[in-house]
């Protein structure tokens, strides 16, 4: 499907979604609580069939956190980027997509470790890289490391 | 039928194992195929590639002159902060004050030899040296000052 068709179909599914087409892919920006229903549709509907989650990450925009999911369909060869906006930066949480794409398990562990987003219904949420008792989340913009040496 | 398969397996396995042994046996008897370089012994004949990046050096000519104008492009280009240039004001023969380098500090322990400083340098004052034997007992010895004492800027590099 082309970006226009994707945009049209997704608008039917989720009218609140906004779009950003400035980049290479079609970006869909949705509120965080709409994530799982949309993702399930994107995975299971035959005309979408996004079976390959190739990049899962998060961006800290200071006033909100943005989860970014890069999706590819191996069948239809189309790409899409789903961005879920999390406004609660003090206690951010979002549904896990591990039930849809298994690769999400370790990737979400990583995001939890470095950004502090809690994933609901995640089978084994743990700090993947850092120690269990590490304070703070290093990839957040407001993270300060007291031990850092200024060059 | 079963027996044929059974002995066929044995035959093929033994054959494949013997092929492997033939190869290792070949190298065991052909000692001139040995590729080892005996490193500390071959220092005299060891030739590094001409672009080899061993360390950052600052060539001086026979009059103890270098080409560094102290523009600090390299310091800005360095991703690790391993270069620190301390400048001073020097009074020229015509009485004008000009910026010249005082010390060109190079932290080899922080350097990743990425070549970005050499590319950034507008006056080709620094080049990559070929020496790669950097091991020392004290980390402080890896902090180097590249401009020699009493060295001057080469004529005509500025402008």
């Amino acid at each position, binding site marked *: 499907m082309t970006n226009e068709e994707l945009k049209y179909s997704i608008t039917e599914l989720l009218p609140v979604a906004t779009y950003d087409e400035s980049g290479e892919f079609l970006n869909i920006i949705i509120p965080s609580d709409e994530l799982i229903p949309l993702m399930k549709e994107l995975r299971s509907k035959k005309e979408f069939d996004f079976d390959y989650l190739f990049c899962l990450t998060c*961006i800290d925009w200071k006033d909100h956190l943005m989860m*970014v999911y890069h999706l590819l369909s191996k069948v239809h060869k189309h790409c899409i980027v789903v961005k879920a906006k999390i406004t609660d930066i003090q206690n951010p949480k979002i549904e896990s997509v591990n039930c849809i794409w298994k690769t999400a398990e370790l990737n979400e562990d990583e995001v939890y470790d470095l950004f502090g987003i809690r994933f609901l219904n995640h089978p084994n949420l743990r700090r993947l890289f850092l120690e269990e008792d590490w304070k703070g989340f*290093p990839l957040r913009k407001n993270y300060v490391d007291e031990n850092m040496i200024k060059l | 039928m079963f027996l044929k398969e059974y002995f066929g397996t044995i035959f093929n396995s033994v054959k*494949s194992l013997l092929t492997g042994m033939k190869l290792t046996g070949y190298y065991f008897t052909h000692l001139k195929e040995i590729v080892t370089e005996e490193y500390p012994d071959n220092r005299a004949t060891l030739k590094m590639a001409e*672009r080899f990046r061993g360390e950052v050096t600052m060539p001086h000519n026979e009059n103890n002159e270098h080409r560094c104008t102290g523009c600090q492009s390299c310091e800005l280009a360095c991703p690790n902060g391993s270069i620190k240039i301390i400048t001073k004001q020097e009074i020229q023969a015509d009485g004008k004050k000009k910026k010249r380098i005082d010390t060109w500090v190079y932290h080899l322990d922080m350097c990743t030899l990425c070549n970005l400083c050499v590319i950034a340098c507008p006056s080709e004052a620094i080049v990559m040296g070929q020496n790669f034997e950097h091991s020392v007992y004290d980390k402080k010895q890896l902090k180097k000052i590249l401009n020699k004492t009493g060295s001057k800027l080469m004529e005509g590099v500025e402008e």
Partner: protein
Amino acid sequence: MLLGQDHITEEGEFVINMGPQHPATHGVLHLKIGLDGETIKKIEPHLGYIHRSIEKMCEQLSYRQFIFTTSRMDYLSAHINNQACVLAVEKALQVEATPRAKAIRVLMAELTRLASHQLWWACMGLDLGAVTPFFYAFREREAINTIIEETCGTRLTQNYMVPGGVMMDIHPNFQKRVKEVLKQIKEKAHEYDELLTGNVIFQQRLKGVGYLSKEDAVSYGCSGPTARASGVSCDVRKLFPYDGYEQLKFDEILNTEGDSWARYLVRLGEMKQSISIIEQLIDNIPEGDFQAKTKNVIKLPKGDFYQRVETARGELGVYIVSDGGATPYRCKFRSPNFSNLSAIPKMAEGAKIGDLVAIMATVDLVIPDIDR
């Protein structure tokens, strides 16, 4: 007492830790394994022993500087990692590298892939207990590394790519030396077959071990030879060509078996394809500049840019979020090994400890790439 209750989980599994210091993990990978006898029930990876926070570091570095850090991720395909960064920056700037630079990049990338697969083959034998193949493969790998050293100045972490092209022109001897090495590799190819590929013990160790189905390979986000051995077509060079791969003739090696033996064969096939790519290009490097003009201080326009390349282990994605400044606002590396690692517990289910070593060897993990 020797084995107290703390060694055995509630499900009756005998827990052993493979790594972080273990001869077969090729680095500081830590796998917590639940065993029943010698049969693996469960694997839980624990990471971070070599985490250098490259993504955070990149937020402080300019677009010229951040490239060199990626050499330290997958150090065996350092060139290809650099290429990914450079291409991402070029895509954002809408600059195109000169034809000569493109050809040199592809040549270097394929040489790196060849060298990387050679190291994989060496370690493959080593992991299964045969030490000798290690040295035979390293002989050829050293020859390739010497060529790379001659042109780039370093052997492993080259940092040869710059936005717009390559840092230096190729060495005058480059073409001659590459042809010599290719001849040498072809002459010695039969040794690889005699020593490992044809060996009955080796085949028995790999066949039917570590099965990964096509659906699982896609779901776990596997890429590279690991996924292609399960029949997933995922060669970025074919699907999303970059740097002139679309003009080259090569095959995507696919295998549908999905076991360790299939992964082994796919990698061997890829070595042949790399040789063929190098042969097509080596006499046809276009004349001209090796670097396109770019500004001294690179500033990317606002927006996100994603660039993927095919490293020796799979799809590497560089995701740059720019706020218009001279440094990336957020830089994410989608590393192939991280996804491939997540499929290992699935592959190793019900296998023996010896099989796990074989599986890890065929998946060819590079730990710094997982930890970044």
